[in-house]
């Protein structure tokens, strides 16, 4: 029996070691952001060939110098504001367009709803890197170059397909009986859609809002293509492109910006991960 206990203990140790290994791989860049953002410059800029200086820890007391630089002397606050403007506008467009479409495909379209939904979902796979060349032309034809309007117009091309699919899938899991009962009670089909369905669909809408928020926060390609002046940039574009002044990298401020942007996204993701996954697995997983 002792041998069995030893084997069990070994197995547990192996499990913890593996879990720690994966945490280290996934989390290391974030630890590095954290430690860089609060290190004093003389602690930060010591060449890696100096083995007596351990870079993994604070050798000098932590400092808020970089954070102050980021919020006081860079355009970071402006980028945050720009990002929020785009988020709000794109969320509004996406909800207004994708939620009715998802409802239509799930409840009104009958047999071809699934196929149609699949078709719309596939457009989500067409990447920005294939479309940015024609879009750059389209945006300049519309006179939207270098404006947040360009992002507000184009980002829904990524959010609408996925969110339509999400809402459709979500409604499949909501029993039809409630709406059916309302119709038996004398509501017209339209009245059901306007008065009964919204209440049922709220969690689905919440997922749409969160997905759109995270996507807008993360998008880089279109922002890089359309936006050229620093004061119109979003966070994901401005931090890596415009926080580098000439050849001088302010690594402390850069990592502080990356850290502060990642934290809210990480929290939101952790809460909504399972809903997103349902959208992605497209019937390959049967729950």
């Amino acid at each position, binding site marked *: 029996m002792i041998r069995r206990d030893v084997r069990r203990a070994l197995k547990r140790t192996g499990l913890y070691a593996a879990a720690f290994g*994966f945490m280290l791989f996934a989390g290391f860049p974030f630890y590095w952001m954290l430690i860089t953002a609060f290190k004093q410059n003389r602690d930060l800029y010591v060449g890696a060939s100096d083995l007596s200086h351990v870079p993994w820890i604070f050798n000098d007391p932590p400092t808020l110098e970089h954070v102050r630089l980021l919020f006081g002397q860079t355009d970071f606050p402006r980028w945050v504001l720009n990002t929020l403007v785009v988020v709000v506008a794109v969320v509004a467009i996406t909800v207004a367009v994708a939620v009715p479409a998802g409802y239509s495909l799930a409840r009104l379209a009958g047999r071809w709803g699934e196929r149609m939904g699949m078709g719309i979902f596939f457009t989500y796979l*067409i*990447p920005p890197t294939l479309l940015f*060349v024609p879009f750059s032309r389209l945006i300049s034809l519309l006179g939207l170059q270098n404006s947040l309007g360009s992002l507000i117009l184009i980002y829904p091309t990524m959010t609408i397909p996925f969110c339509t699919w999400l809402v459709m899938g979500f409604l499949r899991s909501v029993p039809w009986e409630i709406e059916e009962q309302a119709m038996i009670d004398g509501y017209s089909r339209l009245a059901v859609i306007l008065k009964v369905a919204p209440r049922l669909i709220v969690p689905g809408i919440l997922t749409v809002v969160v997905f759109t928020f995270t996507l807008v926060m993360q998008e880089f390609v279109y922002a890089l293509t359309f936006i050229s002046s620093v004061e119109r940039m979003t966070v994901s574009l401005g*931090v890596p492109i415009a926080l580098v002044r000439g050849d001088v990298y302010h690594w402390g401020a850069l990592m502080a910006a990356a850290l502060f942007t990642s934290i809210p996204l990480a929290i939101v993701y952790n809460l909504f991960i399972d809903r997103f996954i349902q959208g992605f697995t497209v019937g390959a997983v049967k729950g």
Partner: protein
Amino acid sequence: MMRRRTLADREEVLGGAMLAPALAYVILLVGVPFVLAIVLSFSNATAGSLRFGWAGLRNYAAILADPIFLRALRNSAVVTVGSQVLVVILATAAAQVFRATFRGKRLARFVLLLPWAVPVSLAAIAWTWIFDSTFSVINWTLKAAGLLHGWLYWLGEPALALVAIIIVQAWRILPFATVIVLAGLSSIPQEIVEAAIVDGAGFWRRLFQVELPLLLPVVTVAVLFGVVYTATDLGVVYILTGGGPANTTHVLPTLAFQRGILGADLGQGAAIAVFLLPFLIVVAVAMLRLARRAEVGAR
């Protein structure tokens, strides 16, 4: 008694009206630009002027004779395949770990998911700092452990830079793949696993002969999304190396951006981007086949 049916009860009218805005958006702003991307690749369009003429296959001839393009094409394939192989191995292993219950699992899961949440451009800038030629913590750690005697210029040497790009891409896709594989694991009927245990199959036997075959569709989905995310990604390479040193680490998207947007040669940029299509078509066909199989299986 039901009310008399009116216009407000006609499902096809309502359904069409509710679907129309989404369809219009997708057709006008995805479908049309998609066609335009292909048309532009046969044109001599430049960003400066609005007129453009037919150039036939000239853009394609030009890029196919261009060693930088051929290198970018090869890099795209190497990075995509390399990172996906890494991801499949790591994700399968990680899913086995995260299926078990252990103390601190919630925290571990939170950390594992972080790379997926962070914007790719910000992750790339953090990795740029990690791979810095003077201050790289990786070099310090390797040296301190006695594993490195010379010096690794991570982003300064073409082969090493590609390794760095593969690491970052794998790091970025791993959480997504792990979560999908986990979802697949939890959907394997418990009776099958129990039957295998009763029949005396050990952990490895169970893994390779029972679970992995059943997981295949799910792993395929993870890989397909991984391929799309990696092959079409611009941010990682653009920020990490900018295609350098000396244009040796370009992938298709960064080269398309350099030629099409920075160089204002829309035709050539579009032609380079069109070479992403084979990656995408393979993915789309595979997903359709999977979906059909799931449909048949559901009946």
